[in-house]
């Protein structure tokens, strides 16, 4: 098959692959994440209240850890999705206009969807911190550091998508997220949520790694699965 540049836009590619518009997708993912996170936090606070017979606000480390876990789940949603031809929809997606280029555009749209949802989620966290419902230490700074950490983990873990064995692939992705998230949470705690040169460097590294990993993953997918 020859290269055929897709004429569809990124939001159109997203819609072809999900059956719904990009804005609706981002909205639902953000609302679901906020509601789910709130439910977890309320449950935790209730359990603490019952346990300690007090109404103390959870420690920053606790809040940022829970947020980190939840932010990771948010990004993982699309990352783990499979579009092989043997799964429902797989053959249909191979026949649509633009073929592989449309697939590549949809994948990029999924990254943007994850990024917007994560940023919206972290803004929600910053609001909760500002009004004192949870404490994450230096609110907005911690949130920015959290977004960088999760996307750095995503960029590194993305290389694991080239592993053929699905169990090994999943273990590797989880392991990378665990290690990077853990280091991220510890550095947020260590810096007290203050943003510095380290975070700027990490943000640049994250962007570069995301571009490299996505190109490598798409190239590998086309060669081993799409054209096969």
């Amino acid at each position, binding site marked *: *098959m*020859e*290269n*055929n540049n897709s*004429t*569809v836009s990124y939001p*159109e590619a997203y*819609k*072809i*692959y*999900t*059956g*719904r*518009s990009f804005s609706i997708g981002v909205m639902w993912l953000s609302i679901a994440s906020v509601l789910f996170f709130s439910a977890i936090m309320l449950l935790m606070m209730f359990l603490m209240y019952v346990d300690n017979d007090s109404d103390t606000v959870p420690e920053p480390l606790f809040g940022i850890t829970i947020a980190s876990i939840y932010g990771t789940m948010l990004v993982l949603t699309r990352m783990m999705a499979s579009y092989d*031809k043997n*799964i*429902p*929809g797989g*053959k*249909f997606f*191979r*026949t*649509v*206009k*633009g*073929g*592989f280029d*449309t697939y590549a555009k949809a994948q990029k749209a999924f990254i943007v969807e994850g990024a917007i949802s994560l940023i919206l989620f972290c803004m929600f966290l910053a609001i909760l911190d500002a009004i004192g419902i949870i404490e994450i230490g230096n609110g907005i700074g911690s949130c920015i550091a959290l977004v960088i950490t999760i996307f750095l983990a995503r960029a590194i873990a993305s290389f694991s998508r080239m592993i053929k064995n699905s169990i090994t692939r999943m273990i590797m992705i989880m392991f990378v997220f665990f290690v990077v998230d853990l280091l991220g949470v510890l550095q947020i705690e260590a810096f007290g949520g203050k943003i510095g040169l380290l975070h700027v460097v990490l943000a640049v590294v994250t962007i570069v790694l995301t571009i490299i990993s996505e190109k490598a993953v798409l190239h590998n997918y086309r060669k081993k699965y799409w*054209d*096969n």
Partner: protein
Amino acid sequence: MENALKINGVVKKYNDFTLGEINSAIPSGFSTALIGANGAGKTTLIDVLCGVTGKNSGEVLYFDKLTDSDSTEVRNSIGYCSSANFFPLDWNLKNVAASMELGFDNFNRERFNELCKKFKIGDPTNRKQKKLIKMSDGNRMRTYLAAVLARDTKLLVLDEPASSLDPLARDMLCDIFRKYIADGNGNRSVLFSTHNIADMEYATDYAIFMSDGKIVEQGFVEDLKEKYILVHGEADKSEYAKKLMISYIGNSTNFEGIALAENTVQLSQLDTAVEKPNLQQLSVGILRKAEKDGE
């Protein structure tokens, strides 16, 4: 005669199966059935033709002029659907329409809405929608057909469209094929694979028989019915008759099978009854011979 597809030496190799070398032509303006046992290579061939799977060698000529299955013109001209889970199962009719509308240049949403109502699978304009996962296999297949028929295409390629449909729906499918071809004034064609040969005979003009990844026979159904005969006889004549037949099944009292029409005179001398086979009988005979040759 113009061809919807011309297949020249197509080969697709897997670790445990090889399709080809396939050489064939799907005539334009007719309905062609791909007939074969499970694992014969029907789905693989359809996937290669529709660009779902790559090929190792060979060439496919689309509509006598195009060779790249990835080109927008070929993608827009072919209406393809597979039998199993063609769309993601968490989709509803609205999602299908939204995706198809952008995925192809020639999708008509109004036509899709009409077909959904005609096939009694629901109204895509309703707020409340049933997901595909909650539909029966038959209704899922009707959804795929509605989606593919809502496009203005030149060739329908359907993988086992009749397998999950009830007899009434199969009859309707045959009518759909006929109407689709008639509306195209000779420029529209249908290619489908099937196990339900008897039910789909009315919709079959041309037949391609496949066994073990290869084409073992092909031609217009009416020509094949002239080429082969169906033979019945009593068991005491079976030993000699067997030598003149390409496929044979018998018991202690009688036998039946397919033979080449050129042997009609010799077989008639054995007090056998000779008649024109239907597509089902023809398929069983040809495929049984192919399996025997393969052994």
